[in-house]
Protein backbone atom coordinates (compact mmCIF):
# COMPACT_ATOMS: atom_id res chain seq x y z
CA UNK A 1 0.00 0.00 0.00
CA UNK A 2 1.29 3.44 -0.86
CA UNK A 3 0.48 6.65 0.90
CA UNK A 4 -0.22 9.76 -1.12
CA UNK A 5 2.28 12.64 -0.86
CA UNK A 6 -0.41 14.69 0.88
CA UNK A 7 -0.88 12.14 3.63
CA UNK A 8 2.82 11.91 4.13
CA UNK A 9 3.17 15.68 4.30
CA UNK A 10 0.33 15.83 6.77
CA UNK A 11 1.96 13.18 8.95
CA UNK A 12 5.29 15.01 8.82
CA UNK A 13 3.62 18.23 9.85
CA UNK A 14 1.83 16.48 12.67
CA UNK A 15 5.15 15.22 14.02
CA UNK A 16 6.72 18.65 13.70
CA UNK A 17 3.79 20.34 15.40
CA UNK A 18 4.05 17.81 18.23
CA UNK A 19 7.79 18.45 18.63
CA UNK A 20 7.29 22.21 18.55
CA UNK A 21 4.66 21.96 21.25
CA UNK A 22 7.05 19.89 23.35
CA UNK A 23 9.71 22.56 22.96
CA UNK A 24 7.41 25.49 23.64
CA UNK A 25 5.50 23.96 26.53
CA UNK A 26 8.08 24.57 29.31
CA UNK A 27 8.38 28.22 28.23
CA UNK A 28 4.62 28.53 28.23
CA UNK A 29 4.42 26.89 31.65
CA UNK A 30 7.01 29.29 33.01
CA UNK A 31 5.11 32.32 31.76
CA UNK A 32 1.68 31.20 32.96
CA UNK A 33 2.99 30.07 36.36
CA UNK A 34 4.45 33.54 36.84
CA UNK A 35 0.88 34.88 36.71
CA UNK A 36 -0.47 32.45 39.34
CA UNK A 37 -1.11 33.37 42.94
CA UNK A 38 0.77 31.19 45.42
CA UNK A 39 -2.28 29.03 46.14
CA UNK A 40 -2.58 28.04 42.49
CA UNK A 41 1.05 27.22 41.72
CA UNK A 42 0.55 23.44 41.80
CA UNK A 43 -2.71 23.43 39.88
CA UNK A 44 -2.57 21.59 36.54
CA UNK A 45 -5.01 23.92 34.79
CA UNK A 46 -3.55 25.32 31.58
CA UNK A 47 -4.22 28.91 32.61
CA UNK A 48 -4.44 30.46 36.12
CA UNK A 49 -8.01 30.94 37.38
CA UNK A 50 -7.11 34.31 38.85
CA UNK A 51 -4.12 35.72 36.97
CA UNK A 52 -2.14 38.25 38.96
CA UNK A 53 0.98 40.40 38.67
CA UNK A 54 1.70 39.90 42.38
CA UNK A 55 4.75 37.71 41.69
CA UNK A 56 6.36 40.41 39.54
CA UNK A 57 5.66 43.05 42.17
CA UNK A 58 7.33 40.93 44.82
CA UNK A 59 10.34 40.08 42.64
CA UNK A 60 10.96 43.79 42.14
CA UNK A 61 10.48 44.31 45.87
CA UNK A 62 12.85 41.65 47.18
CA UNK A 63 15.54 41.92 44.55
CA UNK A 64 17.16 44.70 42.44
CA UNK A 65 16.05 42.80 39.34
CA UNK A 66 16.46 45.71 36.91
CA UNK A 67 19.96 46.39 38.18
CA UNK A 68 20.73 42.72 37.76
CA UNK A 69 19.31 42.71 34.24
CA UNK A 70 21.40 45.77 33.42
CA UNK A 71 24.51 44.05 34.81
CA UNK A 72 23.78 41.05 32.64
CA UNK A 73 23.24 43.11 29.50
CA UNK A 74 26.47 44.96 30.19
CA UNK A 75 28.40 41.77 30.86
CA UNK A 76 27.01 39.94 27.82
CA UNK A 77 27.55 42.93 25.50
CA UNK A 78 31.09 43.53 26.72
CA UNK A 79 31.95 39.83 26.44
CA UNK A 80 30.52 39.71 22.93
CA UNK A 81 32.37 42.83 21.83
CA UNK A 82 35.63 41.56 23.29
CA UNK A 83 35.26 38.12 21.71
CA UNK A 84 34.45 39.56 18.30
CA UNK A 85 37.37 42.00 18.37
CA UNK A 86 39.92 39.45 19.60
CA UNK A 87 38.46 36.86 17.22
CA UNK A 88 38.77 39.19 14.23
CA UNK A 89 42.35 40.15 15.04
CA UNK A 90 43.47 36.58 15.72
CA UNK A 91 41.73 35.19 12.65
CA UNK A 92 43.19 37.95 10.47
CA UNK A 93 46.69 37.23 11.73
CA UNK A 94 46.28 33.53 10.97
CA UNK A 95 44.79 34.08 7.52
CA UNK A 96 46.84 37.03 6.33
CA UNK A 97 50.37 35.88 7.18
CA UNK A 98 52.12 32.59 6.78
CA UNK A 99 54.51 32.47 9.69
CA UNK A 100 56.44 29.71 11.44
CA UNK A 101 54.17 28.17 14.03
CA UNK A 102 51.04 29.60 12.42
CA UNK A 103 49.42 26.23 12.01
CA UNK A 104 50.48 25.23 15.49
CA UNK A 105 48.84 28.38 16.85
CA UNK A 106 45.68 27.53 14.97
CA UNK A 107 45.65 24.00 16.38
CA UNK A 108 46.28 25.23 19.91
CA UNK A 109 43.38 27.65 19.65
CA UNK A 110 41.16 24.83 18.40
CA UNK A 111 42.44 22.61 21.19
CA UNK A 112 41.73 25.22 23.86
CA UNK A 113 38.07 24.82 22.97
CA UNK A 114 38.22 21.30 24.36
CA UNK A 115 39.55 22.36 27.77
CA UNK A 116 36.62 22.19 30.20
CA UNK A 117 35.84 25.22 32.33
CA UNK A 118 36.34 23.23 35.51
CA UNK A 119 40.04 22.82 34.69
CA UNK A 120 40.77 26.53 34.46
CA UNK A 121 38.24 27.64 37.05
CA UNK A 122 40.57 27.61 40.08
CA UNK A 123 43.54 29.38 38.41
CA UNK A 124 41.13 31.90 36.91
CA UNK A 125 39.56 32.48 40.28
CA UNK A 126 42.92 33.01 41.99
CA UNK A 127 44.04 35.35 39.22
CA UNK A 128 40.80 37.33 39.31
CA UNK A 129 41.09 37.69 43.08
CA UNK A 130 44.69 38.93 42.87
CA UNK A 131 43.73 41.39 40.15
CA UNK A 132 40.97 42.75 42.38
CA UNK A 133 38.27 41.61 39.98
CA UNK A 134 36.31 39.70 42.57
CA UNK A 135 32.67 40.73 42.67
CA UNK A 136 32.94 42.96 39.55
CA UNK A 137 31.45 42.89 36.06
CA UNK A 138 34.98 43.20 34.64
CA UNK A 139 35.83 39.98 36.43
CA UNK A 140 33.05 38.27 34.50
CA UNK A 141 34.16 39.68 31.15
CA UNK A 142 37.97 39.50 31.17
CA UNK A 143 38.47 35.70 31.37
CA UNK A 144 35.99 35.34 28.48
CA UNK A 145 37.43 38.14 26.35
CA UNK A 146 38.91 35.70 23.85
CA UNK A 147 37.13 32.58 22.68
CA UNK A 148 38.37 29.80 20.44
CA UNK A 149 34.90 29.54 18.96
CA UNK A 150 34.92 33.14 17.72
CA UNK A 151 38.44 32.83 16.33
CA UNK A 152 37.65 29.63 14.45
CA UNK A 153 34.37 30.81 12.94
CA UNK A 154 35.90 34.10 11.81
CA UNK A 155 39.03 32.30 10.59
CA UNK A 156 36.91 30.13 8.32
CA UNK A 157 34.91 33.10 7.10
CA UNK A 158 38.07 35.03 6.29
CA UNK A 159 39.64 32.09 4.52
CA UNK A 160 36.64 32.08 2.20
CA UNK A 161 37.14 35.77 1.46
CA UNK A 162 38.79 36.20 -1.97
CA UNK A 163 42.54 36.64 -1.57
CA UNK A 164 42.70 38.79 -4.67
CA UNK A 165 40.54 41.45 -3.05
CA UNK A 166 42.95 41.64 -0.12
CA UNK A 167 45.81 41.85 -2.59
CA UNK A 168 44.03 44.61 -4.49
CA UNK A 169 43.89 46.57 -1.24
CA UNK A 170 47.62 46.00 -0.80
CA UNK A 171 48.22 47.29 -4.31
CA UNK A 172 46.08 50.30 -3.45
CA UNK A 173 48.42 51.00 -0.55
CA UNK A 174 46.22 50.00 2.37
CA UNK A 175 48.06 48.58 5.39
CA UNK A 176 46.98 45.34 7.06
CA UNK A 177 44.84 46.89 9.77
CA UNK A 178 43.22 49.24 7.31
CA UNK A 179 42.54 46.35 4.95
CA UNK A 180 40.95 44.42 7.79
CA UNK A 181 38.74 47.30 8.88
CA UNK A 182 37.82 48.83 5.54
CA UNK A 183 37.83 45.87 3.19
CA UNK A 184 37.43 42.58 5.05
CA UNK A 185 35.10 43.38 7.96
CA UNK A 186 32.41 45.13 5.90
CA UNK A 187 32.13 41.94 3.86
CA UNK A 188 31.93 39.62 6.86
CA UNK A 189 28.73 41.02 8.34
CA UNK A 190 26.91 37.71 8.35
CA UNK A 191 29.56 35.66 10.17
CA UNK A 192 30.23 38.50 12.60
CA UNK A 193 26.49 38.68 13.33
CA UNK A 194 26.41 34.91 13.90
CA UNK A 195 29.34 34.98 16.28
CA UNK A 196 27.88 37.97 18.13
CA UNK A 197 24.50 36.34 18.62
CA UNK A 198 25.98 33.07 19.83
CA UNK A 199 28.44 34.86 22.14
CA UNK A 200 25.71 37.04 23.59
CA UNK A 201 23.39 34.12 24.30
CA UNK A 202 26.12 32.01 25.83
CA UNK A 203 27.33 34.92 27.99
CA UNK A 204 23.74 35.60 29.04
CA UNK A 205 23.31 31.99 30.13
CA UNK A 206 26.62 31.89 32.00
CA UNK A 207 26.03 30.54 35.48
CA UNK A 208 29.03 28.85 37.01
CA UNK A 209 31.65 31.59 36.73
CA UNK A 210 29.41 34.37 38.10
CA UNK A 211 28.41 32.01 40.90
CA UNK A 212 32.07 31.76 41.90
CA UNK A 213 32.99 35.38 41.42
CA UNK A 214 30.01 37.45 42.50
CA UNK A 215 29.28 38.09 46.17
CA UNK A 216 26.70 40.83 46.43
CA UNK A 217 23.26 40.53 44.94
CA UNK A 218 23.46 44.04 43.41
CA UNK A 219 26.58 42.99 41.45
CA UNK A 220 24.93 39.81 40.31
CA UNK A 221 23.67 38.62 36.93
CA UNK A 222 20.26 37.09 36.21
CA UNK A 223 21.22 33.44 36.31
CA UNK A 224 22.49 33.96 39.86
CA UNK A 225 19.49 36.09 40.72
CA UNK A 226 17.19 33.18 39.89
CA UNK A 227 18.94 30.98 42.36
CA UNK A 228 17.93 33.47 45.05
CA UNK A 229 14.40 32.04 44.96
CA UNK A 230 15.57 28.46 45.38
CA UNK A 231 16.21 27.47 48.93
CA UNK A 232 16.57 24.37 51.00
CA UNK A 233 13.13 24.93 52.49
CA UNK A 234 11.62 24.75 49.04
CA UNK A 235 11.36 26.89 45.95
CA UNK A 236 9.18 29.95 45.66
CA UNK A 237 7.81 28.89 42.29
CA UNK A 238 5.72 31.93 41.48
CA UNK A 239 8.60 34.34 42.13
CA UNK A 240 11.10 32.06 40.41
CA UNK A 241 8.96 31.87 37.29
CA UNK A 242 8.37 35.64 37.22
CA UNK A 243 12.11 36.29 37.56
CA UNK A 244 12.89 33.62 34.94
CA UNK A 245 10.41 35.22 32.55
CA UNK A 246 12.09 38.57 33.05
CA UNK A 247 15.49 36.94 32.57
CA UNK A 248 14.50 35.32 29.29
CA UNK A 249 12.80 38.38 27.84
CA UNK A 250 15.94 39.95 26.31
CA UNK A 251 16.96 36.66 24.72
CA UNK A 252 13.43 36.05 23.45
CA UNK A 253 13.53 39.54 22.00
CA UNK A 254 16.77 38.74 20.18
CA UNK A 255 15.18 35.59 18.80
CA UNK A 256 12.13 37.48 17.60
CA UNK A 257 14.05 40.30 15.95
CA UNK A 258 16.95 38.30 14.55
CA UNK A 259 15.16 34.97 14.11
CA UNK A 260 16.66 34.20 10.73
CA UNK A 261 20.22 35.08 11.75
CA UNK A 262 19.95 33.11 14.99
CA UNK A 263 18.76 29.98 13.24
CA UNK A 264 21.41 30.39 10.54
CA UNK A 265 24.18 30.83 13.05
CA UNK A 266 23.12 27.71 14.94
CA UNK A 267 22.96 25.75 11.71
CA UNK A 268 26.31 27.02 10.44
CA UNK A 269 28.22 26.61 13.65
CA UNK A 270 26.83 23.11 13.92
CA UNK A 271 26.55 23.27 17.67
CA UNK A 272 23.84 22.82 20.29
Amino acid at each position, binding site marked *: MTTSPNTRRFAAHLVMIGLSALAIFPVYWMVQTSFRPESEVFSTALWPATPTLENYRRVIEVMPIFGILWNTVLMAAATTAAQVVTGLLAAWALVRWRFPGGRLAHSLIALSWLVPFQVVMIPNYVLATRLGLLDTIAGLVVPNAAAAFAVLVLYNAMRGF*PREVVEAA*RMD*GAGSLRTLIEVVIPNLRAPIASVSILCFISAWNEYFWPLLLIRKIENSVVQIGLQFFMSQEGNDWGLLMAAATLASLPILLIYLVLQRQVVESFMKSGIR
Partner: protein
Amino acid sequence: MASINIRSVSKTYGKTLAVNGIDLHVEDGAFVVILGPSGCGKSTLLRMIAGLEDITSGEIAVDEKVVNDLQPAKRGCAMVFQNYALYPHMTVAQNIGYALKVSGIARRDRDERVARIASTLGLTHLLDRKPSQLSGGQRQRVAMGRAMVRSPGIFLFDEPLSNLDAQLRIQMRLEIKRLHRELRTTSVFVTHDQVEAMTLADKLVVMNGGRIEQAGSPSEVFRKPQSRFVANFLGSPPMNFLPATIDGSGRAVIGGNLVPWPQLVFDLPRGTRIELAFRPGSAVVAPLDGASAALPFALELTEDLGTEHHLHGKVAGTAVAITLPAGKNIPATPFAIAIASEDMHAFQVEGGQRVAPSRATPETIMKHGAAA
Protein backbone atom coordinates in the same frame (compact mmCIF):
# COMPACT_ATOMS: atom_id res chain seq x y z
CA MET B 1 56.08 55.49 -17.18
CA ALA B 2 58.85 53.17 -16.24
CA SER B 3 61.06 50.37 -17.43
CA ILE B 4 61.43 47.05 -15.66
CA ASN B 5 64.62 45.06 -15.35
CA ILE B 6 64.38 41.50 -14.15
CA ARG B 7 67.73 39.91 -13.38
CA SER B 8 68.10 36.16 -12.72
CA VAL B 9 64.94 36.06 -10.66
CA SER B 10 63.92 32.74 -9.11
CA LYS B 11 61.12 31.70 -6.84
CA THR B 12 60.80 28.50 -4.89
CA TYR B 13 57.86 27.26 -2.86
CA GLY B 14 59.36 24.80 -0.42
CA LYS B 15 61.24 22.52 -2.79
CA THR B 16 59.27 23.40 -5.92
CA LEU B 17 60.95 25.75 -8.33
CA ALA B 18 58.20 27.99 -9.74
CA VAL B 19 60.36 30.55 -11.52
CA ASN B 20 63.84 29.58 -12.58
CA GLY B 21 66.36 32.33 -13.30
CA ILE B 22 64.40 34.76 -15.43
CA ASP B 23 66.15 37.64 -17.18
CA LEU B 24 63.85 40.10 -18.87
CA HIS B 25 63.93 43.74 -19.81
CA VAL B 26 60.68 45.61 -20.30
CA GLU B 27 61.25 48.91 -22.04
CA ASP B 28 59.57 52.11 -21.05
CA GLY B 29 56.15 52.24 -22.67
CA ALA B 30 56.29 48.69 -24.05
CA PHE B 31 53.46 46.20 -23.95
CA VAL B 32 54.94 42.87 -22.97
CA VAL B 33 52.80 39.74 -22.95
CA ILE B 34 53.90 36.70 -20.99
CA LEU B 35 52.35 33.60 -22.49
CA GLY B 36 52.48 30.06 -21.23
CA PRO B 37 50.48 27.08 -20.06
CA SER B 38 49.06 27.08 -16.54
CA GLY B 39 51.69 26.40 -13.92
CA CYS B 40 54.55 27.77 -16.03
CA GLY B 41 55.32 30.50 -13.50
CA LYS B 42 54.00 33.45 -15.49
CA SER B 43 51.59 34.65 -12.80
CA THR B 44 54.22 34.17 -10.12
CA LEU B 45 56.61 36.33 -12.11
CA LEU B 46 53.96 39.03 -12.46
CA ARG B 47 53.16 38.88 -8.76
CA MET B 48 56.84 39.26 -7.95
CA ILE B 49 56.96 42.41 -10.07
CA ALA B 50 53.88 43.65 -8.21
CA GLY B 51 55.40 42.84 -4.83
CA LEU B 52 52.68 40.40 -3.82
CA GLU B 53 55.18 37.56 -3.81
CA ASP B 54 58.65 37.51 -2.28
CA ILE B 55 61.62 36.99 -4.57
CA THR B 56 63.73 33.98 -3.59
CA SER B 57 66.79 35.14 -5.50
CA GLY B 58 67.66 37.70 -8.12
CA GLU B 59 66.64 41.29 -8.55
CA ILE B 60 63.75 43.29 -9.94
CA ALA B 61 64.37 46.92 -10.73
CA VAL B 62 61.91 49.59 -11.80
CA ASP B 63 63.70 52.44 -13.55
CA GLU B 64 66.98 50.97 -12.32
CA LYS B 65 65.83 51.18 -8.71
CA VAL B 66 65.81 47.75 -7.07
CA VAL B 67 62.34 47.17 -5.62
CA ASN B 68 62.81 43.70 -4.08
CA ASP B 69 61.96 44.88 -0.58
CA LEU B 70 59.51 47.64 -1.47
CA GLN B 71 55.82 47.42 -0.55
CA PRO B 72 53.51 46.85 -3.57
CA ALA B 73 52.00 50.32 -3.42
CA LYS B 74 55.43 51.97 -3.44
CA ARG B 75 56.56 50.31 -6.68
CA GLY B 76 54.45 52.44 -8.96
CA CYS B 77 52.58 49.41 -10.28
CA ALA B 78 48.85 48.92 -10.60
CA MET B 79 47.35 45.52 -11.16
CA VAL B 80 44.24 44.20 -12.86
CA PHE B 81 43.28 40.82 -11.45
CA GLN B 82 41.71 37.86 -13.17
CA ASN B 83 38.55 37.94 -11.03
CA TYR B 84 38.52 41.75 -11.07
CA ALA B 85 38.93 41.70 -7.26
CA LEU B 86 36.61 44.66 -6.78
CA TYR B 87 35.66 45.61 -3.23
CA PRO B 88 32.17 44.10 -3.02
CA HIS B 89 30.79 46.57 -0.46
CA MET B 90 31.95 49.72 -2.23
CA THR B 91 30.32 51.54 -5.11
CA VAL B 92 32.09 51.87 -8.44
CA ALA B 93 33.21 55.38 -7.48
CA GLN B 94 34.57 54.18 -4.14
CA ASN B 95 36.30 51.25 -5.79
CA ILE B 96 38.08 53.48 -8.27
CA GLY B 97 38.88 56.12 -5.67
CA TYR B 98 40.06 53.84 -2.86
CA ALA B 99 43.76 54.12 -3.67
CA LEU B 100 43.43 57.91 -3.63
CA LYS B 101 41.59 57.78 -0.31
CA VAL B 102 44.34 55.62 1.18
CA SER B 103 47.01 58.01 0.01
CA GLY B 104 45.14 60.84 1.71
CA ILE B 105 43.97 62.85 -1.27
CA ALA B 106 41.20 65.32 -0.46
CA ARG B 107 37.69 64.29 -1.29
CA ARG B 108 37.01 66.94 -3.92
CA ASP B 109 40.22 66.18 -5.76
CA ARG B 110 39.45 62.51 -5.53
CA ASP B 111 35.95 62.84 -6.95
CA GLU B 112 37.29 64.86 -9.81
CA ARG B 113 39.87 62.26 -10.75
CA VAL B 114 37.39 59.42 -10.39
CA ALA B 115 34.93 61.25 -12.65
CA ARG B 116 37.62 61.78 -15.25
CA ILE B 117 38.65 58.11 -15.29
CA ALA B 118 34.99 57.03 -15.34
CA SER B 119 34.29 59.11 -18.40
CA THR B 120 37.34 57.70 -20.20
CA LEU B 121 36.01 54.21 -19.57
CA GLY B 122 32.33 54.99 -20.10
CA LEU B 123 31.42 54.27 -16.48
CA THR B 124 29.93 57.63 -15.53
CA HIS B 125 26.35 56.36 -15.28
CA LEU B 126 27.42 53.42 -13.10
CA LEU B 127 29.37 55.28 -10.42
CA ASP B 128 26.79 54.65 -7.69
CA ARG B 129 26.36 50.95 -8.36
CA LYS B 130 27.86 48.09 -6.43
CA PRO B 131 30.02 45.51 -8.27
CA SER B 132 27.30 42.86 -7.89
CA GLN B 133 25.01 45.03 -10.04
CA LEU B 134 27.46 45.13 -12.94
CA SER B 135 28.04 42.85 -15.91
CA GLY B 136 31.37 41.12 -16.42
CA GLY B 137 32.55 43.67 -18.94
CA GLN B 138 31.59 46.57 -16.69
CA ARG B 139 33.42 45.01 -13.74
CA GLN B 140 36.46 44.62 -15.94
CA ARG B 141 36.27 48.31 -16.79
CA VAL B 142 36.02 49.26 -13.13
CA ALA B 143 39.09 47.14 -12.42
CA MET B 144 40.88 49.01 -15.21
CA GLY B 145 39.74 52.32 -13.77
CA ARG B 146 41.00 51.38 -10.35
CA ALA B 147 44.39 50.65 -11.87
CA MET B 148 44.45 53.82 -13.95
CA VAL B 149 43.41 56.27 -11.27
CA ARG B 150 46.80 56.46 -9.61
CA SER B 151 48.50 57.14 -12.95
CA PRO B 152 50.93 54.29 -12.28
CA GLY B 153 54.21 53.84 -14.14
CA ILE B 154 53.40 50.20 -14.83
CA PHE B 155 50.22 48.25 -15.49
CA LEU B 156 50.21 44.59 -14.56
CA PHE B 157 47.48 42.40 -16.00
CA ASP B 158 46.91 38.91 -14.60
CA GLU B 159 44.75 37.12 -17.20
CA PRO B 160 42.19 39.91 -17.00
CA LEU B 161 40.04 38.71 -19.88
CA SER B 162 39.75 35.03 -19.10
CA ASN B 163 36.42 35.37 -17.29
CA LEU B 164 34.68 37.17 -20.13
CA ASP B 165 32.68 35.58 -22.92
CA ALA B 166 34.28 35.39 -26.35
CA GLN B 167 32.69 38.50 -27.83
CA LEU B 168 33.37 40.70 -24.82
CA ARG B 169 36.91 39.44 -24.70
CA ILE B 170 37.59 40.76 -28.19
CA GLN B 171 36.00 44.07 -27.29
CA MET B 172 38.00 44.47 -24.08
CA ARG B 173 41.16 43.41 -25.88
CA LEU B 174 40.71 46.23 -28.34
CA GLU B 175 39.93 48.60 -25.52
CA ILE B 176 43.12 47.69 -23.65
CA LYS B 177 45.07 48.17 -26.86
CA ARG B 178 43.45 51.57 -27.42
CA LEU B 179 44.17 52.64 -23.84
CA HIS B 180 47.77 51.60 -24.17
CA ARG B 181 48.13 53.59 -27.35
CA GLU B 182 46.74 56.65 -25.58
CA LEU B 183 48.48 56.33 -22.24
CA ARG B 184 51.70 54.63 -23.34
CA THR B 185 52.03 53.11 -19.89
CA THR B 186 54.50 50.25 -19.60
CA SER B 187 52.38 47.10 -19.40
CA VAL B 188 53.00 43.48 -18.53
CA PHE B 189 50.14 41.21 -19.47
CA VAL B 190 49.95 37.57 -18.46
CA THR B 191 47.74 35.20 -20.42
CA HIS B 192 47.45 31.65 -21.66
CA ASP B 193 45.42 32.80 -24.67
CA GLN B 194 47.64 33.00 -27.72
CA VAL B 195 45.30 35.24 -29.69
CA GLU B 196 45.44 37.83 -26.91
CA ALA B 197 49.18 37.42 -26.79
CA MET B 198 49.70 37.81 -30.53
CA THR B 199 47.41 40.82 -30.89
CA LEU B 200 48.42 42.82 -27.83
CA ALA B 201 52.14 42.31 -27.54
CA ASP B 202 54.98 44.53 -28.65
CA LYS B 203 57.16 41.87 -27.15
CA LEU B 204 56.00 38.33 -26.59
CA VAL B 205 57.58 36.19 -23.90
CA VAL B 206 56.78 32.47 -23.94
CA MET B 207 57.36 30.71 -20.64
CA ASN B 208 57.45 27.04 -19.77
CA GLY B 209 58.48 25.24 -16.60
CA GLY B 210 59.57 28.44 -14.88
CA ARG B 211 61.88 29.50 -17.72
CA ILE B 212 61.61 31.80 -20.70
CA GLU B 213 61.48 29.66 -23.83
CA GLN B 214 61.61 32.58 -26.22
CA ALA B 215 61.16 36.34 -26.22
CA GLY B 216 60.71 38.53 -29.25
CA SER B 217 58.16 40.25 -31.47
CA PRO B 218 54.97 38.20 -31.92
CA SER B 219 55.69 37.58 -35.59
CA GLU B 220 59.24 36.48 -34.85
CA VAL B 221 58.08 34.06 -32.16
CA PHE B 222 55.33 32.72 -34.37
CA ARG B 223 57.36 32.43 -37.56
CA LYS B 224 60.65 31.35 -36.08
CA PRO B 225 59.99 29.38 -32.91
CA GLN B 226 63.23 28.61 -31.14
CA SER B 227 62.02 25.41 -29.51
CA ARG B 228 59.57 22.63 -30.08
CA PHE B 229 57.55 23.86 -27.10
CA VAL B 230 57.03 27.33 -28.60
CA ALA B 231 56.26 25.84 -32.00
CA ASN B 232 53.67 23.54 -30.52
CA PHE B 233 52.16 26.09 -28.13
CA LEU B 234 51.49 28.83 -30.68
CA GLY B 235 49.01 28.36 -33.47
CA SER B 236 45.68 26.63 -33.78
CA PRO B 237 45.45 23.90 -34.88
CA PRO B 238 48.97 23.37 -33.58
CA MET B 239 52.01 22.71 -35.69
CA ASN B 240 52.51 19.23 -37.18
CA PHE B 241 55.60 17.30 -36.21
CA LEU B 242 57.02 14.52 -38.35
CA PRO B 243 59.72 12.31 -36.84
CA ALA B 244 62.74 12.10 -39.13
CA THR B 245 66.25 10.67 -39.10
CA ILE B 246 69.37 12.25 -40.57
CA ASP B 247 70.95 10.15 -43.31
CA GLY B 248 74.57 9.94 -44.42
CA SER B 249 74.42 13.10 -46.50
CA GLY B 250 72.69 15.17 -43.79
CA ARG B 251 69.18 15.02 -45.25
CA ALA B 252 66.10 14.35 -43.16
CA VAL B 253 64.38 11.04 -43.94
CA ILE B 254 60.76 10.56 -42.96
CA GLY B 255 59.24 7.12 -42.44
CA GLY B 256 62.39 5.32 -43.54
CA ASN B 257 62.31 6.26 -47.23
CA LEU B 258 60.72 9.70 -47.83
CA VAL B 259 63.11 12.57 -48.46
CA PRO B 260 60.73 15.40 -49.34
CA TRP B 261 63.27 18.21 -48.92
CA PRO B 262 66.56 17.00 -50.30
CA GLN B 263 67.84 20.58 -50.49
CA LEU B 264 67.70 20.90 -46.66
CA VAL B 265 70.99 19.60 -45.34
CA PHE B 266 71.62 19.43 -41.63
CA ASP B 267 75.01 19.52 -40.02
CA LEU B 268 74.15 16.64 -37.73
CA PRO B 269 75.64 13.17 -37.36
CA ARG B 270 74.05 10.34 -39.25
CA GLY B 271 71.19 8.70 -37.34
CA THR B 272 70.32 11.81 -35.30
CA ARG B 273 66.61 11.90 -34.64
CA ILE B 274 64.90 15.21 -35.35
CA GLU B 275 61.37 16.42 -35.93
CA LEU B 276 60.36 18.30 -39.03
CA ALA B 277 57.48 20.65 -38.42
CA PHE B 278 55.09 22.78 -40.43
CA ARG B 279 51.98 24.85 -39.74
CA PRO B 280 48.66 23.39 -40.92
CA GLY B 281 48.17 26.41 -43.15
CA SER B 282 51.49 25.94 -44.94
CA ALA B 283 50.42 22.75 -46.68
CA VAL B 284 48.91 22.71 -50.15
CA VAL B 285 47.22 19.85 -51.92
CA ALA B 286 49.45 18.11 -54.48
CA PRO B 287 48.81 15.21 -56.86
CA LEU B 288 49.76 11.80 -55.60
CA ASP B 289 52.21 11.06 -58.40
CA GLY B 290 55.21 9.85 -56.51
CA ALA B 291 57.02 13.17 -56.76
CA SER B 292 59.56 13.18 -53.95
CA ALA B 293 58.50 16.65 -52.81
CA ALA B 294 54.96 15.66 -51.82
CA LEU B 295 53.91 13.63 -48.82
CA PRO B 296 51.08 11.10 -49.28
CA PHE B 297 48.22 12.18 -47.01
CA ALA B 298 45.73 9.61 -45.68
CA LEU B 299 42.63 11.71 -45.03
CA GLU B 300 40.54 10.56 -42.07
CA LEU B 301 38.25 13.42 -41.10
CA THR B 302 37.17 16.80 -42.43
CA GLU B 303 35.87 19.71 -40.34
CA ASP B 304 34.13 22.64 -41.97
CA LEU B 305 34.64 25.79 -39.87
CA GLY B 306 32.97 28.08 -42.35
CA THR B 307 36.04 30.19 -43.00
CA GLU B 308 38.27 27.20 -43.59
CA HIS B 309 38.41 23.42 -43.64
CA HIS B 310 40.44 21.38 -41.20
CA LEU B 311 41.66 18.10 -42.65
CA HIS B 312 42.87 15.47 -40.23
CA GLY B 313 44.82 12.52 -41.47
CA LYS B 314 48.12 10.71 -41.38
CA VAL B 315 51.47 11.20 -43.05
CA ALA B 316 53.82 8.23 -42.80
CA GLY B 317 51.83 7.01 -39.80
CA THR B 318 51.92 10.32 -37.91
CA ALA B 319 48.75 12.31 -37.20
CA VAL B 320 48.73 15.54 -39.20
CA ALA B 321 46.19 18.35 -39.53
CA ILE B 322 46.10 20.80 -42.39
CA THR B 323 43.84 23.76 -43.10
CA LEU B 324 42.50 24.73 -46.49
CA PRO B 325 40.65 27.94 -47.38
CA ALA B 326 36.87 27.58 -47.57
CA GLY B 327 36.74 28.00 -51.35
CA LYS B 328 39.10 25.12 -52.11
CA ASN B 329 37.67 21.78 -53.09
CA ILE B 330 38.79 18.82 -51.10
CA PRO B 331 39.98 16.14 -53.53
CA ALA B 332 37.80 13.06 -53.55
CA THR B 333 40.66 10.76 -54.50
CA PRO B 334 43.75 10.09 -52.38
CA PHE B 335 46.17 12.99 -52.56
CA ALA B 336 49.47 14.29 -51.23
CA ILE B 337 50.45 17.50 -49.50
CA ALA B 338 53.37 19.75 -50.33
CA ILE B 339 55.08 22.25 -48.06
CA ALA B 340 57.55 24.91 -49.15
CA SER B 341 60.97 24.29 -47.64
CA GLU B 342 61.08 27.78 -46.09
CA ASP B 343 57.92 26.90 -44.17
CA MET B 344 59.65 23.93 -42.61
CA HIS B 345 61.01 24.00 -39.09
CA ALA B 346 63.25 21.41 -37.55
CA PHE B 347 63.74 20.58 -33.88
CA GLN B 348 66.03 18.22 -32.09
CA VAL B 349 64.24 15.39 -30.34
CA GLU B 350 66.65 15.75 -27.44
CA GLY B 351 65.92 19.06 -25.70
CA GLY B 352 63.61 20.32 -28.43
CA GLN B 353 65.97 23.04 -29.67
CA ARG B 354 65.50 24.48 -33.14
CA VAL B 355 68.03 23.26 -35.68
CA ALA B 356 68.68 25.17 -38.86
CA PRO B 357 69.83 23.42 -42.01
CA SER B 358 73.42 24.32 -42.83
CA ARG B 359 72.68 24.48 -46.53
CA ALA B 360 69.35 25.25 -48.08
CA THR B 361 68.58 26.34 -51.56
CA PRO B 362 65.98 29.08 -51.79
CA GLU B 363 63.94 26.96 -54.16
CA THR B 364 60.67 25.66 -52.92
CA ILE B 365 59.91 22.02 -53.21
CA MET B 366 57.14 22.86 -55.65
CA LYS B 367 59.71 24.23 -58.05
CA HIS B 368 61.99 21.39 -57.22
CA GLY B 369 59.21 18.97 -57.90
CA ALA B 370 58.41 20.71 -61.21
CA ALA B 371 62.06 20.65 -62.27
CA ALA B 372 62.26 16.97 -61.52
